[in-house]
């Protein structure tokens, strides 16, 4: 792929294209998705479309948040397979969220979700670090193990919960959009966080590129690597925790979206940050739309987390056979 100059004009153009693609897909998903339910009156139509809009916006903000978090983890951990779900960050957020919802206060649940996500990043990072370097295998393995521990803890909580709460926990853990009541305030919060984190990462993008090449190189080119890493991990944990509070732990969005954008645009994070923001939003809207069509065809509702995991698993294997190999050989 030929490298083209990175200019402000191309940047604005790219953002407009990304926004346009998302807007068209979202409009189609609201309109056609809504048409699957027959309506008799204008009032009914308004209700159906309002509900579809809420779901599509949920999918958009959650998709954008998870895709950005995945991109940041891949850049800073220098690992093409890093992703909030695989690293256990989503699981940590889920555990904190359920714990709070069952035993403490429902209002504070997103906060504890964020705390769980951040704690997991710290644990995984510490375990995988040796003499200042992140070992790629250990990183993924510690993600696997911490996910297993969280899985057990969530099963324990489910067993301790009242029977009528168990169904809710199970449905939520599948990664669901719109399974629970109206959530506009939370949608707005997650959306604002995702937009803020995207802006932050756009400013960090130069640094992401340099850290991907090497931490000493980044430091010598004027990047404050320690601060970049700290702020990025906190920001990525924040959006992951918030999106888990909204839609449960949806996996592999943070893996699929950044890598598809890399295949399209190359490895430059200055281009990848805005691209991943819009594509993450678009991707999860599409996945939710597919689940909606499935339901419209007369089947039972399909949790969107199931769908993304079914796409993401094979994609993970593909990356393992291609990117991972190349990375280990050139190391």
């Amino acid at each position: 792929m030929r490298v083209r100059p990175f200019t402000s004009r191309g940047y604005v153009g790219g953002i407009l294209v990304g926004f346009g693609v998302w807007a068209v897909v979202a409009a189609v998903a609201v309109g056609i998705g809504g048409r699957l339910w027959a309506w008799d009156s204008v009032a009914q139509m308004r209700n159906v479309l309002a509900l579809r809009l809420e779901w599509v916006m949920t999918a958009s903000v959650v998709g954008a948040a998870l895709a950005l978090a995945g991109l940041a983890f891949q850049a800073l951990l220098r690992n093409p397979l890093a992703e909030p779900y695989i690293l256990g960050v989503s699981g940590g957020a889920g555990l904190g969220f359920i714990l709070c919802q069952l035993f403490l206060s429902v209002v504070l649940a997103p906060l504890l979700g964020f705390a769980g996500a951040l704690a997991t990043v710290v644990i995984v990072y510490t375990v995988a670090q040796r003499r200042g370097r992140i070992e790629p295998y250990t990183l993924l393995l510690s993600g696997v193990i911490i996910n297993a521990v969280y899985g057990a803890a969530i099963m324990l909580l489910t067993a301790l919960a009242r029977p009528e709460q168990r169904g809710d926990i199970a449905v939520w853990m599948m990664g669901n959009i719109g399974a629970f009541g109206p959530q506009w305030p939370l949608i707005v919060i997650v959306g604002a966080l995702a937009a803020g984190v995207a802006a932050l990462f756009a400013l960090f993008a130069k640094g992401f590129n340099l850290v991907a090449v090497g931490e000493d190189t980044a430091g010598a080119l004027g990047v404050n690597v320690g601060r970049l890493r700290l702020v990025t991990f906190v920001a990525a944990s924040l959006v992951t925790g918030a999106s888990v509070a909204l839609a449960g732990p949806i996996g592999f969005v943070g893996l699929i979206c950044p890598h598809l954008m890399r295949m399209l645009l190359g490895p430059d994070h200055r281009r990848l940050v805005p691209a991943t923001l819009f594509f993450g939003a678009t991707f999860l809207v599409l996945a939710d739309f597919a689940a909606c069509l499935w339901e419209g065809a007369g089947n039972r509702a399909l949790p969107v987390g199931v769908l993304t995991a079914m796409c993401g698993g094979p994609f993970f294997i593909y990356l393992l056979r291609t990117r991972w190999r190349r990375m280990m050989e050139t190391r």
Partner: protein
Amino acid sequence: MAQDDGNPLTAAVPPAGGPYLAVRDIVFAYGRGTPALNGLSMEIGRGRLVTVLGPNGSGKTTLLRVLVGLLAPAAGEVRLAGVRLDQYPRGALARRVAYVPQDTHSALGFTVLETVLMGRSPHTGALGFEASGDWLAAREALRMTGTEPFAERSLDELSGGERQRVVIARALAQAPELILLDEPTAFLDIKHQHAIYGLLRRLVREGNLTVLCVSHDLSLAAAYADDLALLDAGRVVATGRPGDVLRPEVLSPVYDTPIEVRTDEATGRPYLLPRPPA
């Protein structure tokens, strides 16, 4: 600019005069181990090619990392153009000093041109937009290092020698005054070793750059460098012209092995005789 901080050294060394790079009594230790740098002092004039020599673990790489601002010395001070190193903002220092580290892999498949353009990072704005000047600098750096033919190739497809030249090109694109290189000729065959040193020599002569380079190859260093500095246990034990440093009575105790030195009649520069110790 030098600030009057009451330090007599500041008054004594005006920014314009004095050595370009002055290192005084710096101490640095990783963790609580023995100091990697233990009262190291040296001076480097502008437009010189200086090679730092020394046994394994003598503090060569640590010295470079201090000079580029990656490590802060526990004691002593470094002055660049008369100003203390820790007074430079990160970006300002990166516009003056470039660093070519030893391991030069790229995990995410950047091309050669993209890699070299990263050298422009301290010169671009927050979002990293590139002006035509940035591309000119990158193209010029590719040309000077002879890496233009593979500008569009991915960095991890290149051989060790090619990759080393690309990383030097990135340092050149940075438009620095001083380039620090950590063993740029390690893992390279003799032809590429000469190519790298020849390039450094040319950069000093034509580009008015100052180059500080760490090496294990004493003969090669003596053949190209203006000055040598010999490190042992975190100090400079000898410094000066190659003929002054490459002497058996200086080298043998530092390397703890008998060393014989000859002089190349054609150039007058010293070289080591590769003779197995008796």
